């Protein structure tokens, strides 16, 4: 049976790695190459790397750094940030990135998603749904690293992306980002009941039990940032990743 993937999410800007809370107040947590090397040793299932400035500040993709990162990584890597064209994706695949993660450009240009899927296959194209709850508890989608509100409702957009052929969907809760009090399980469940493609929970994981819950609510993979880069209480930077046996026991029987 397929293993449930547990995926560290790394946020990059200016060639460094950062972590924030609710998409804000990003603090430096380390050098990307070093981090990848450490996660190699920890035998991480997969890595997701987001450039959090590329779309927001319209910066070019840092291909050179990504190539160095991919060379060091003996696990699959998904990258998101500033991907606007087929050529961007082609360059990323050539330098060793397994999957491209789209957000802003996919929302602005459905045709790009379709073309990417046709050219590179569903398995290489991921959409990241950044969502935030309104005061009244309604979910809304955001683009440009959480800056710009999108009019399409989350489930409708998720379905649209599935129809366009994406291979998987990351459900990223802006409200829960960096809070480490658990995923937004309600939206995971809502989307899981309406989609057939694999879903990755993102935003809010603080303890192993959160992964288990996400899986019970319909996620196929669990990702986390703070939980893997901080040493709990005082938020001192310390990379960690659960032992394989621990994860196996955790997901047993779900």
């Amino acid at each position: 049976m397929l293993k449930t993937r547990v995926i560290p999410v790394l946020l990059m800007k200016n060639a460094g790695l950062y972590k924030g809370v609710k998409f804000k107040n990003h603090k430096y947590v380390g050098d990307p190459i070093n981090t990848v090397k450490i996660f190699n040793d920890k035998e991480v299932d997969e890595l997701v790397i987001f450039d959090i400035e590329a779309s927001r500040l319209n910066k070019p993709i840092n291909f050179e750094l990504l190539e160095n990162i991919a060379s060091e990584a003996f696990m699959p890597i998904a990258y998101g940030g500033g991907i606007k064209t087929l050529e961007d994706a082609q360059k990323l695949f050539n330098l060793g990135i397994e999957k491209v993660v789209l957000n802003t450009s996919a929302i602005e240009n459905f045709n790009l998603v379709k073309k990417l899927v046709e050219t590179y296959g569903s398995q290489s194209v991921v959409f990241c749904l950044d969502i935030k709850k309104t005061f009244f508890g309604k979910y809304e989608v955001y683009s440009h690293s959480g800056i710009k509100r999108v009019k399409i409702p989350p489930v409708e957009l998720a379905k649209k992306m599935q129809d366009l052929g994406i291979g998987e969907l990351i459900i990223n809760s802006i409200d829960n980002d960096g809070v480490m009090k658990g995923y937004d399980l309600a939206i995971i469940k809502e989307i899981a009941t309406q989609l057939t493609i694999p879903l990755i929970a993102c935003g809010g994981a603080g303890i192993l039990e959160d992964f288990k819950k996400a899986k019970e609510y319909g996620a196929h993979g669990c990702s986390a940032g703070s939980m893997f880069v901080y040493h709990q209480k005082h938020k001192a930077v310390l990379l960690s990743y659960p032992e394989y046996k621990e994860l196996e026991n955790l997901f047993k029987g779900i």
Partner: protein
Amino acid sequence: MIVVVDYGMGNLGSIANMIKKTGHKCLITSDIEEIKNATKLILPGVGSFDNGMSNLAELGMIKVLSQKVLIEKTPILGICLGMQLMTKSSEEGTLAGLGWVDAISKKFVSDTLKIPHMGWNIIKHQKSSHLFDELESEKRFYFVHSYCVSCNQKVDILTNTNYIQDFVSSFEKENIIGVQFHPEKSHKFGMSLIKNFVENF
């Protein structure tokens, strides 16, 4: 020299890096002369079946690869699409495959499980091979694919993996090896496989 065949189908950097980490040298190339001189070949690939076959044809590689593999018996490792291209045909396309192994590539069909089969899964040995260190306990590998290989000759099957049904996750027929998973993205398990291919074949 170990040659990683570059036919324009996906990322070859990580394979080259992994070979380097095992202490060996390799060359990523589409040069026919280099392929002719190869002591070992790696046929990687990500993408669609017909794209892969037409790229091989356009680059004039089909004849030289077949000569190397079938006549000279140069060890070859096909990875993912590279494995599927070694079969006779695929439900994904209309072009004929390389046909080195009596097998075809079929689409996964399921009402309940997600396709593509994407993520880590385990392998079940069907025969012994120098490709795997048998003493190592459960081995897991990273898979990403919507089509899978079905062997007509059971004796060719090296490992099975279960997703929807048991499918062939690797085959070995004399000097021809194909793996559906990505060893270059399966950390220590993949590294041990690459090392074994380079040193034991």
